[in-house]
């Protein structure tokens, strides 16, 4: 893996290399360089499998993180590539030409986070949320509690007590 990382360092502006003995090694990369690097890894370095494409909402930094985990089945190694894109009008190049089923990941991310992948087949189709017209629900500014209060009715039979108030009633009601 060291050799590969050194090789990548010479060709691509990778940074924040985090090596692990138990999981994949992670590298961070400028979003614009993702397609060239991941193509090279697939065609020249045996990383034939896309394991997962996942998203983190760094709302405080105004960024989305996309993590591409790829696998080299011959050497049984995983590599995670992290890129960061602006949260506003979030958009990223599609990788469906490298892995056809990446379109499914991208369609899900579009629905859950609102990140666009122009050209990805069916990216605007509904995935899980039929008839959803709210903010994409995995965005951290989506108010889950308010949504459920507005949408569902409360379950009957629930009641609770504030410990301090309850202790006052029980121990010193008149003071």
């Amino acid at each position, binding site marked *: 893996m060291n050799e590969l990382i050194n090789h990548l360092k010479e060709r691509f502006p990778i940074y924040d290399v985090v090596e692990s003995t138990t999981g994949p090694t992670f590298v961070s990369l400028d979003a614009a360089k993702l397609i060239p690097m991941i193509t090279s890894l697939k065609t020249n370095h045996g990383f034939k499998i896309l394991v997962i494409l996942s998203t983190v909402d760094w709302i405080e930094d105004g960024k989305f993180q996309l993590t591409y985990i790829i696998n080299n089945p011959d050497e049984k190694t995983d590599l995670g590539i992290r890129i960061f894109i602006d949260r506003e009008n979030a958009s990223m190049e599609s990788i469906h030409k490298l892995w056809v089923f990446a379109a499914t990941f991208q369609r899900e991310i579009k629905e859950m986070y609102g990140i666009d992948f122009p050209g990805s087949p069916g990216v605007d189709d509904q995935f899980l949320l039929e008839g959803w017209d709210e903010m994409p629900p995995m965005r951290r500014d989506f108010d*889950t*509690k308010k949504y459920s209060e507005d949408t569902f009715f409360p*379950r009957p*039979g*629930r*009641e*609770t*007590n*504030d*410990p*301090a*108030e*309850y*202790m*006052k009633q*029980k*121990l*010193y009601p*008149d*003071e």
Partner: protein
Amino acid sequence: MSIKDVIVPFSAWRKVFDKPVTIKDPINERPGADRYRGFHKNDLETCIGCGTCEVICENEAIDLVPVEGIETKDGDSGLRPRVDYGRCCWCGLCVDICTTGSLSLTNAYTWVEEDPEKYRFTPGVDEKPWDNEEKGWKKPEPNYEFYNLKRVTMEHLHPEERSDSFIEMVKGYSKEQAEKEADRCVECGICTATCPAHMGIPEYIKAIRNNDLEEGLRILYDTNPLPEICGRICTHKCEAVCTIGHRGEALSIRWLKRYIADQNPSEKYKTILNSEFIEKNGKSIAIIGSGPSGLSAAHYLALMGYEVTIYEKLPHAGGMMRYGIPEYRLPYDQIDKDIDYILSLGVKILYNTTIGKDITLEELGKKYNAVFAGTGLHLGRSTRIEGSDHKNVYQSIELLRKITLGEEIDLAEKMIVIGGGNVAMDITRSIARLQMKKYGKAGVIATSLETEDKMPADREEVVEAREEGAIVDPGWAPQHIEIVDDKIKGLHVAQCHSLFDEEGNFNPQCNLDNLKFFEGTMVVESIGQGMDLSYLSDDIKHELEIDKRGRIKVNEDFQSGLPWLFIGGDIIQGPDVIHGIANGHTAAKGIDTFLFKESK
């Protein structure tokens, strides 16, 4: 559609007689992983119903409900968490925050019911098959904490800096330290019930976190008009029940209170507390004694519009807070800050005025609409051992009073203090300081009946006394004071092995084979204080109900058998400052109710 698409599904039938790849009987024996986040378990004995699990639950799946057989008491709300599995997502935050470590998730994950209501259950109360399951999610140890288990250390003067001076030894928190300490509070409010004054503790700690110290001061004054004083010397019973104390160090509630009071300048108090204009109600109250209960009653009565006059025997106000507690624990300017604010509300104090001598209680009863007496425990108790009537045997409380008054006390190079409470430590440490100043060396031994682990004094008092050069040698019963040629030579003691008999009565037993002799030329007795009720005339005593132990009976408003006479403070409850404050507050409300009814 090609012919292949039609044929392929049928090709699967070829596998029908192959050995299956699935596990046979998948329903049984499929335990969850060792750290699986399955169904809840709660150790009811350890749980104190602090409700932190309820607060952290993002899904609002937890309610706190009363449970039969679990009593609401100091440090335990009596409530227990009930989980609604219609909402729970098994994230495990309730387990991770649990302040006592009572809550866990087992690795059980199958549960079938017809009635959906059954999925709302109280772990530990409603019996479940997984109650004895050991595997599952527990709070990962160590270093996985949502709050700091350790206190922010309070800085003290070093022993060598303080051993010959009466300068305040506790330095107080900085803003950064106070906010960091306040950040450890989980706002459960378990402490509020235990505080005799039921102070809004989580609320004022929250004010520190929000850096809104004016709001903090208002919260303090709702229930306690002596925050500078209590912020220094309160017995802090609240800290003993603090929920954080179950797995870590309790919040420094007392020091946080001091921080709020210290940070607010006295000249802004009236504006902050909105007490610039008080409408008078035309009634007047006399208060006997300017200790904590009297000052507290005066404060709340003045706010209600009463004309309040305090009668004080000594030349300054504060009672035991000034004349009992040494200056290095409670500086006089801090006492004055609290008292001056109360005086600014229009409260008058008549100093050097003794009831029964300068004016009688009957006269006060006639002159004022009501009287509150908080006269405290100012008489020392004697051991009555042989030699204790010698002129060089002193009462700690008298010496402490003299030190405050600025009078010189008799001092010797070798002195002995009898007593193991906080007052004994106060006089021991004061003597050590004075000896240090006069002789350059501390030479005082404090001894008590109680062994080290049972000494009633706060632990830090004992530790600090030793740091300052005093010897604390507990577990000895005084036998007699040796006197030769009318001079004290020392104190003979015997090992004390039990304090109470089988009925629980105070009856110390000693081992006369294990004797010891403490050398010293002066002895100070500090084994407790009694009340001086000589200001009560026989006529008044006749009207009051007095129990076997000599305590005057009062009702829940601290009203005595004489309707116009309210009594509180150390002579009724305690003894400590915070009970006095609480009594004074309750009595003030009681007086108001009494006079309000009377005028109708």
